[in-house]
């Protein structure tokens, strides 16, 4: 699936929620189900510090594709972070650099990516892009 296909899929999945409790309930479930990151990766280097919640992001680069692992101390942040990872996971640096996470707006969760939010998610999106740029530079040399 392309990044946009995954985004479309998520938009469809979220379209069934008619009120915020269902939607956030789903995010909470997600946050709970996503496996915890191994402690050894929860280090300073992988930490994206929001003021309110902390996000860890750890990447692997295999066969020209980037794989993401994420975690957060807050469940909603973790759920949201996982959605972002799901969208970008296993794609090439170019694909990642080309595509914005527009689904967040479509499923009406854009507020969590606003620059004034202090949950670390916007910083996470930036970090994803930076990783993509770095891997791209690395693999082209």
């Amino acid at each position, binding site marked *: 699936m392309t990044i946009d296909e995954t985004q479309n899929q998520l938009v469809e999945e979220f379209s069934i929620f008619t009120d*915020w*409790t269902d939607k*956030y309930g789903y995010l909470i479930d997600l946050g709970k189900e996503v496996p915890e990151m191994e402690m050894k990766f929860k280090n300073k280097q992988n930490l994206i510090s929001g003021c*309110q919640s902390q996000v860890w992001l750890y990447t692997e680069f295999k066969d020209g594709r980037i794989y993401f692992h994420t975690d957060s101390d*807050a469940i*909603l942040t973790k759920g949201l972070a996982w959605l972002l990872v799901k969208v970008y996971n296993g794609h090439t640096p170019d694909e990642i650099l080309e595509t914005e996470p527009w689904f967040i707006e479509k499923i009406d969760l854009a507020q969590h990516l606003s620059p004034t939010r202090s949950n670390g998610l916007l910083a996470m999106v930036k970090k994803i892009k930076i990783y993509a740029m770095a891997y791209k530079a690395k693999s082209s040399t």
Partner: protein
Amino acid sequence: MPSIDVQQLRLDFPLLQRKTYNRQIVYFDNAATTQKPSKVIDITSEYYQKYNSNIHRGVHYLSEKMTEAYENARSTVQKFINAQHIHEVIFTSGTTDSINLVAFSFGEKFVHEGDEVIVSHMEHHSNIVPWQMLCERKKAVLKVIPMNPAGVLDLDALESLISPKTKIVSVAHISNSLGTINPIDKIIAIAHKHNVPVMIDGAQGIQHSIVDVQKLDCDFYAFSGHKIYGPTGIGVLYGKEKWLNEMPPYRGGGDMIKNVSFEKTVYADLPFKFEAGTTNFIGAIGLSTALKYLNQIGMDKIIAYEEELKLYAHRKLIAIPNLTFYGSSDKKAGIFSFLINKIHHFDTGLMLDKMDIAVRTGTHCTEPVMSFFGIQGTVRVSLSFYNTEDEIDYLVESINKVKQLFK
């Protein structure tokens, strides 16, 4: 039986009438900033429309009117805190500014290498960092009054912390993250016994207490306009004349001088020595309007009602299973810091927001308090006299819903 007519008073506050998502907002973030009565908002507009003009030294009608209003505002503050002299009231831009002023100017004159400054473990960063900066600059030592797990300061420890090198003690009137009402009268008595002056950070005290600086005998008292129903960008520093006279100025600029030449500059008298440049004169008038509004209701009635509401909230909140509270002094203001078992403070805050309840989450600028309890942050509900028992009931209901969601 409430001592004030809350429903009536709520109508004075336009913001409380608004909806956020689905219902009228329930504003429980009063320790961060308070809402403004129409009188404060309206007078701000009115002064911009009719009198706006730079104060002092003005020869024309507007400037005179504005200067008069500004100096009357000072007099209103003086009476509100019962300062002995009007020139003991300095307008600043807020509590943080007031504390920095004292840390710099008092520090410049009286704190030298090896000297000691004492704060408490429950201080807001604004009452820690300025003193840390001073101590770093002067190679002085910052000492800390410890607290117990209930969030109560250890006054015996204070006694033993004070030494001949102690130059000042600075503590909060009321803790913004624990709600503890500190026994500032006792703290002042202990420090004065050793001839050490005391600064009180009144950011959370002034709006919930009757503050009489002469009776308290504090040497400095600081507070912010925006936390006592006044505008942003205005604050107060009360200081005893004898200290203010001895302290060098903090900021240099217009209005704080008597004469300037490149060879020699002579500073103005109090209070102007500490009010460099164009002050927030419209803000000062807004603040004094807020104080007059409170006087009109009666601070005693406000305090009585807030006490009642606090007890009601306390009863209701502790009855919810699996909540952990931080701060359990028996002298407490209407500030409740808590965590719902295992649920991250941020998650709780987000969900309460969705239910139109505004609370604050995080460290509340008191990281040492969080470290003390080994937590990252709390959910904080802070009450004002315009909050109601119904709102508390709705909060309890909503907390239960959060618990349900995260089950």
